[in-house]
């Protein structure tokens, strides 16, 4: 495995200068001198004794963002030996499946992306709808995708179909051969160009403590650093140490649903995005099958009509929710809104992102019907206002939320549980690898405070000689592309990165001939 090869794109002669890969010593670790220095030399790294390996490209994360890039590059012609994926899960869908399951999307439920957001197929054809029709031997999905959103709601695939398709594609492209399990601690620039990627391999007994990958091209797709709580709920959790009655929708919280089956419970749901919709569906499904549940849905901002002043750019809204099929208008992925955003800088870009995105949920008739039924039955109520305090009641029976309404009244809600469905942590500084990059590599932040990347997803300020650093996923939201944190957006980023790598000398741009040939190989499930 520890092959010695020229770092792709490095000037001729760099191989000799760089010296061979280093076998290293097993217990070797980073020295303080290395940790303190922004740029490392080959000699310093060799002196540390940490085993080192040369590779053309390293992708950090090993989730769907890494998968999209590895898939694209394999199809464009790179070998498994040229790519190292450094992640902490053996399946590229592991983190996604975990977050989806917690936020109440079991495998048979439908996701929120369209038929053409096909995670296992860079072409988007055949779509998930065609494949579902094929496996189910039913034209229902085809009818839906052909008439959406005019006669039917947008088609969206089942979670289980996406997972299975990614598993098949991962096996086809040799994912396991590229993957090295463990955590990436830091990426530092190399004197003379390229990067050192410092990896802490996962628990193997007797294995090296650290491993360094020397590369000209690195890619980061590490997803979200963690879950985020609303400030008042965060404060409650820290003050009381009660982590079981105030929960985040992205954390495991099955105990909430379990308790509603044993006794009557009032549950406060906070948030009005897609995850709130999922949690409401779960609670009301349980209610409709006999659990004693009363839901109080607490809004900070209540949407009671279409949003926006421009008659040509109004988003439907009612009953508290802003509605759109996907997290951005569809054309943000590859149509006129994609081009519009690319032209904008600074605040103007941030404003358009807010207008197109923000908190919103999918308009599904089954959801609004269910809410209406539950509202009539007294199982679902809405409240609007600013939270003044969240306190545990003395007898431990409930948590009391005091809410100030806009009319100036105070409203008291006593509940057994509060589910925070407002979001995941997005502050990039909270991620150790990102924090290290911000401190040592000259990278900056975009108008939304996340990692600043070019239109082709190269991290600004991180170039190192011929070396380039790229990033995709949620950490790059605020850049020139809106849908960064989505299947299709990850594939778009992968395509832009692959094309840029080809310009830098790694691999070739995918042209029509190879594209067709590779599509046929995909269809026949043959290695690229």
């Amino acid at each position, binding site marked *: 495995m520890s092959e010695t090869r020229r770092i792709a794109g490095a000037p001729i002669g760099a191989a000799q200068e760089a010296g061979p890969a280093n076998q290293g010593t097993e217990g070797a670790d980073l020295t303080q001198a290395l940790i303190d220095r922004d740029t490392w030399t080959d000699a310093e790294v060799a002196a540390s004794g940490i085993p080192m390996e040369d590779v053309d490209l390293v992708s950090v994360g090993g989730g769907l963002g890494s998968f999209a890039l590895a898939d694209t590059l394999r199809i464009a012609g790179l070998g498994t030996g040229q790519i190292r994926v450094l992640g902490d899960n053996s399946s590229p869908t592991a983190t996604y499946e975990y977050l989806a399951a917690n936020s109440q999307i079991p495998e048979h439920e439908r996701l929120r992306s369209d038929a*053409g957001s096909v995670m296992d197929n*860079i*072409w*988007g*054809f*055949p*779509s998930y709808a*065609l494949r579902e029709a094929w496996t189910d031997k039913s034209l229902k999905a085809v009818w839906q*995708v*052909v*008439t*959406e*959103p*005019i*006669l039917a709601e947008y088609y969206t695939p089942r979670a289980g179909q996406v997972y299975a398709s990614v598993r098949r594609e991962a096996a086809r492209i040799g994912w396991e051969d590229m993957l090295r399990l463990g955590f990436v601690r830091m990426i530092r620039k190399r004197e003379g160009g390229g990067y050192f990627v410092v990896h802490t391999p996962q628990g193997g007994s007797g294995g090296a403590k650290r491993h360094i990958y020397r590369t000209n091209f690195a890619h980061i797709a590490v997803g979200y650093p963690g879950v985020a709580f609303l400030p008042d709920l965060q404060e409650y959790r820290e003050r009381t140490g009660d982590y079981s009655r105030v929960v985040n929708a992205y954390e495991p919280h099955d105990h909430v649903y379990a308790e509603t089956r044993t006794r009557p419970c009032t549950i406060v749901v906070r948030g009005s995005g897609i995850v709130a919709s999922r949690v409401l569906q779960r609670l009301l499904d349980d209610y409709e099958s006999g659990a004693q549940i009363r839901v109080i849905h607490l809004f900070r901002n209540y949407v009671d009509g279409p949003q926006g002043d421009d*008659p*040509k*750019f*109004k*988003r*439907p809204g009612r009953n508290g929710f802003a509605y*759109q*099929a996907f997290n951005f*208008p*569809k*054309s943000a*992925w*590859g*149509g*006129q*809104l*994609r*081009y519009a955003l690319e032209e904008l800088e600074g605040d103007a870009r941030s404003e358009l992102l807010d207008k197109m995105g923000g908190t919103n949920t999918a308009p599904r008739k089954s959801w609004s019907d269910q809410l209406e039924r539950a509202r009539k039955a007294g199982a679902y109520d809405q409240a609007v206002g600013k939270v003044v305090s969240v306190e545990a009641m003395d007898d431990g029976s409930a948590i009391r939320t005091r809410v100030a309404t806009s009319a100036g009244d105070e409203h008291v809600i006593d509940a057994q549980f509060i589910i925070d469905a407002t979001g995941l942590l997005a502050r990039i500084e909270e991620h150790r690898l990102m924090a290290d990059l911000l401190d040592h590599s000259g990278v900056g932040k975009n108008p939304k405070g996340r990692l600043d990347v070019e239109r082709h997803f190269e991290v600004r300020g991180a170039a190192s000689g011929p070396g380039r650093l790229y990033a995709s996923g949620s950490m790059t939201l605020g850049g020139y592309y809106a849908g960064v944190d989505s299947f299709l957006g990850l594939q*778009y980023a992968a*395509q832009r990165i692959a094309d840029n790598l080809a310009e830098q000398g790694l691999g070739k741009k*995918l042209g*029509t001939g190879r*594209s*067709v040939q590779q*599509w046929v190989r995909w269809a026949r499930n043959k290695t690229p």
Partner: protein
Amino acid sequence: MTPTLFGRIQTRLFLVATVGVLWTLLIGPALAGMMSDPDATTGDVYRLAFGALVLVAVVGIGWELIYHALQQYRWEKDWPTFFGLVTGLPEGIVVALLLGAGLPWDVGDVPLGAYTVHFATTWVLIWLVANGPMQVLFPRWRFRGGQLL
């Protein structure tokens, strides 16, 4: 689909010139028997069918301007697949009227049977190719609003 104005026009011209032309060449002989004139030859069919293709391409640019303007009223700024199919109806009628009026060249009275079969099959075929195979031929096309250049 999420076309841009240039993407619409480029994709239309490309598909008419490739899929449209190939299909017309193929289906021409089979349509001769459906012409109103019992003595019609394949050459007569081609005269009619290629006239229709020229109109779909040229007049189509005008249609695309209209579709693009309508698209501006959609929040998603997309063009549902369904629209791509049903717009064949008004377009087909307009092309038939123009052919009957002697544009782009004289084809006499438009033989409805042959015209309808040619127009409908070509339209559906182009629509099918635009909804999938194009993405395989041009892997960047779907992210560029249908622009090929």
